[in-house]
């Protein structure tokens, strides 16, 4: 967090593990809350809020994936499919039973958790690359099932329109309404993850990641915790899928294909594996990167090149920069944006004195 921690002496483990590591952190959080809940939504145009909304959706999904990949060390290339499970569960509930959105949200998450745990079963026997490819198979198989079972997909178009969520009698339809709606879940997801990773479960996950055999020896039931990691991660994914469905007003499996899974992996790697702040930063970075590249190219590219060339160049340049940045982070800053942030903070911590 953004503050200086002079003169703090922790005298117990409980204090060291507290959600707010420093007394002043409460104030920082308060200021951040004011910025995100009041300043940003009231000051910015709806367009920027729509970008913020895409970021919020990505944040929740990235947090979930980081629990699995970053904290538990199990690679998954099936995150997009778990989102689609949540999305279609909610869409079916709302069209068949007309259930309210909190029910759908929970049901979507739980269904995704169940499916995720099933896809996670091979993790008990295989790991690393083999597991990555097994989850890739899970992604393709789930896609195929949604695409072909009309009971789930609601017809050959495999897309189910979903009405806007209501809060009491207020319909949440504008980007500003959605901003608040999503932000609440982002806060819940962040606090939930922070609490999870400092709990018994979270420590078990980290133990499995760091040395699974040792973890088993100290009495961690690997079987249970690995499946739990898949389930929790998929629960987040399912909730992301439901939120996305409400955001767009439609559930459509083509929005959850393999490219999405890869984008989320990119987010947590660029952000920093095994870090909550990293998941948030990574989600922001990967979502904003193409937009920023495009806007700057539109602003400056015309100075040197023909407009038609610019139009062709922007998207390809974006692809290349996306790839190059991922490689850059992997090679130069393996701990991602989270580490960068800490480096900067450490720099300013003793600023203006160099040592």
């Amino acid at each position: 967090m953004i503050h200086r921690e002079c003169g703090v002496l922790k005298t117990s483990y409980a204090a060291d593990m507290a959600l707010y590591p420093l007394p002043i952190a409460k104030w920082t959080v308060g200021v951040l809350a004011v910025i995100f809940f009041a300043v940003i939504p009231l000051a910015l145009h709806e367009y920027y809020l729509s970008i913020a909304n895409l970021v919020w959706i990505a944040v929740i999904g990235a947090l979930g994936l980081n629990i699995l990949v970053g904290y538990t060390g199990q690679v998954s290339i099936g995150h997009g499919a778990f989102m689609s499970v949540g999305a279609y569960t909610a869409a079916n509930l709302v069209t068949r039973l007309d259930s309210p959105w909190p029910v759908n949200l929970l049901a979507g998450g739980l269904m995704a958790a169940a499916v995720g745990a099933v896809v996670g079963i091979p993790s008990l026997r295989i790991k690393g690359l083999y597991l990555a490819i097994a989850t890739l198979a899970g992604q393709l198989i789930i896609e195929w099932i949604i695409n072909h079972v009309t009971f789930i997909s609601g017809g050959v178009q495999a897309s189910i329109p979903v009405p806007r969520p209501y809060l009491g009698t207020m319909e949440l339809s504008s980007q500003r309404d959605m901003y608040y709606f999503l932000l609440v879940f982002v806060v819940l997801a962040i606090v939930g993850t922070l609490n999870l990773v400092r709990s018994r479960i979270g420590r078990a996950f980290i133990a499995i990641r760091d040395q699974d055999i040792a973890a088993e020896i100290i009495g961690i039931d690997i079987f249970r915790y690995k499946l739990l990691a898949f389930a929790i991660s998929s629960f987040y994914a399912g909730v992301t899928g439901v939120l996305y469905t409400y955001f767009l007003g439609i559930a459509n499996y083509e929005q959850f294909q393999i490219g999405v899974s890869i984008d989320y992996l990119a987010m947590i790697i660029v952000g920093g594996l095994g870090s909550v702040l990293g998941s948030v930063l990574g989600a922001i970075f990967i979502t904003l990167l193409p937009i920023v590249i495009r806007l700057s190219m539109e602003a400056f590219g015309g100075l040197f090149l023909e407009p038609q060339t610019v139009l062709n160049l922007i998207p390809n340049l974006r692809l290349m920069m996306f790839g190059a940045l991922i490689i850059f982070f992997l090679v130069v800053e393996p701990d991602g944006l989270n580490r960068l942030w800490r480096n900067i903070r450490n720099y300013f911590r003793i600023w203006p004195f160099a040592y």
Partner: protein
Amino acid sequence: MSDETGFFLLLMSNGLLIGLMYALIALGFVLVYKATDAVNFAQGEFVMISGILVAAALGVWGAPLWLAVALGIGTMIVFGFGLERVMLRKLIGRPVIAVVMATIGLASILRGIGPTAFGAGSRPLPLPISDAPFVIGPLFIPPIQLVGGLVSLLFLTGFGWFFVKSRKGIAMRAVADNQQVAMAMGINVQRYFGLAWAMAGLVSALGGIIWGSSVGVDVNLALVGLKVFPVVILGGLDSIPGAVVGGLIVGVVENIAAGYVDPYVGGGTKDFAPYVLMILVLMIRPYGIFGKKIIERV
């Protein structure tokens, strides 16, 4: 011979031939994994970029075929060496996901470079091979697939010999087995890593030429890369004969699925069936059919 038997034979021959074409792409993947323990999620993009390069050399610059092919192969070999030096050397010893993600990033770069440098349109990659099939009884054998299959088998024997008999091949196996011991024995580990990537580049170049000639060249050629995973998992990630056998199994399973399952399901099970088979194999033999049996278990 009844129609049904004839059709079955046709499906089988088609499956075996296309399986060898898959094996050609899987070989590049296996070579890298065998020697360096790295996985290449950009295998499809390697194939795509070499296909685009050769097609552009033929179509745009009007190079003769031998020169275009040589250019494609040469570029890919240099590219393999360079890639190892610039990117992969820095990732040695890092978790598997780091390499996976780095190659995914590389894939993204290649997909941007292809159209920027050579234009986005589809191009033919004409080889002096006729499209007219050889007809043997009920079978149609397309010459291009025959060539692809032959190249696969050639590589299989070539690389088989290389790894078993040649000095370099044995050194490469030593590197793959235990890098530290290999280094202690005076083997230049980094050079062999580079060599492995260059070999993967060579195989990809040929894969790009043959697949490109078969389906036309544009960015979508990279999608053949997705076929690689069931092939290599079935065969075993580090086994060259495994790549060929895996390819054959996937080819046959796909054709059986399309010919006999699709009519009852009403959807394409062709791409889906190999993955289901793959999951089953993973549960029974996690190291594939021919893979090294030292998979870590928990």
